[in-house]
């Protein structure tokens, strides 16, 4: 006699092998490795993007006539990539054989170290980038003379009494130094904001996972 689907269903599950639950053992390990692998992938892509951008900017700067900006920019970003490349090596060294909690803790420690180093570097990097822009445009050729000098001669026409230091208006020096100082002070914060913009979701997942495991341990 033909069996109905209802009977096939009921009778099929009466057999002992049909409803054996798998053991829950390595879920957290899998998740930890997955999150960290994702971060590593994003981190590598980010470094490649920085290298590509600094090359493109270097070439473009020669065409636009601000090679000093391009070279300084390129050098600064190269140092940034070298630092982070060596930091990445440390991340690769974390043993995947550790328990998921230890693995996440090791990763978290690495993140903290990475953030501290990059925050300090950012305090120099942002002012250098700003100054490279100022210097680059200052020496940009403007019909035979540097753009900066041309700009000053125009300013002097309007404000002949302006106070100059080595031929540069004091107010301009103060403005540049002020901006550079602000960038140095807030460089770390800007870096942190940038970091969370890119990796915020990964960090959030990491935090949740660690909280889960900690709850499990208690």
């Amino acid at each position: 006699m033909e069996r109905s689907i209802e009977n096939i269903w009921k009778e099929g599950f009466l057999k002992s092998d049909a409803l054996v639950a798998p053991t829950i053992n390595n879920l957290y390990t899998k998740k930890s490795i997955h999150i960290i692998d994702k971060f590593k992938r994003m981190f590598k892509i980010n470094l490649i993007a920085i290298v590509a951008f600094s090359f493109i900017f270097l070439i473009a700067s020669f065409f636009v006539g601000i090679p000093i900006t391009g070279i300084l920019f390129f050098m600064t970003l190269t140092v940034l990539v070298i630092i982070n490349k060596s930091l990445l090596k440390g991340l690769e060294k974390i043993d995947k054989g550790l328990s998921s909690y230890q693995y996440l803790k090791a990763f978290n420690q690495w993140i903290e170290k990475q953030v501290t180093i990059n925050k300090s570097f950012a305090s120099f990097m942002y002012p250098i980038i700003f100054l490279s822009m100022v210097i680059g445009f200052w020496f940009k050729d403007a019909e035979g003379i540097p753009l900066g000098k041309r700009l000053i001669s125009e300013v002097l026409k309007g404000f002949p009494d302006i106070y100059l230091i080595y031929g540069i208006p004091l107010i301009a020096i103060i403005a540049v130094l002020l901006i550079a100082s602000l960038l140095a002070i807030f460089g770390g914060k800007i870096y942190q904001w940038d970091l969370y913009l890119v990796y915020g979701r990964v960090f959030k997942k990491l935090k949740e996972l660690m909280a889960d495991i900690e709850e499990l341990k208690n």
Partner: protein
Amino acid sequence: MSNDFYKTSIIPYSGIIIKLCRAYTNSQEDFEDYFQEVCLQIWRSKENFREESEWSTWVYRISLNVCLTLLKKKKKNRQHFVSDSITTEETEDNYAFSDESLNLLYDAIRKLSEIDRAIIMLYLEEKSYQEIADIMGTNSNNIGVRVKRIKTKLKKILDGKIN
């Protein structure tokens, strides 16, 4: 996840979870991943259970949502790989129950759309049309018509296989 929670709130309902996860996966590895993820999500959302429905209904709802989300993720990843020109094949390890008819029925269920799969599973679990409608967010008349249609579809698939 504490052992107590697992023993008291998941194990008694693991039948439902297993049945559902089997319907949305093709391999033992995927099945175990889905099962573990469902258990984790049940544990995580335990605070949100308001006792407005039965715990089993709650478990079913979470299981279904997790399975559908994972399936969507899997499809998206597959599309991503295909667009990267990397050929991927669905890994099937031909997991089989010892009951051949049940295997055929599961194969047939996997051929249904994601929503039809959910409806027929609830129906086979002897949920009322109203309960199914509540879980699926529709009305019971709709479910009645849909169940009939799905059963006919399943019968056709099964007849084709058996013949």
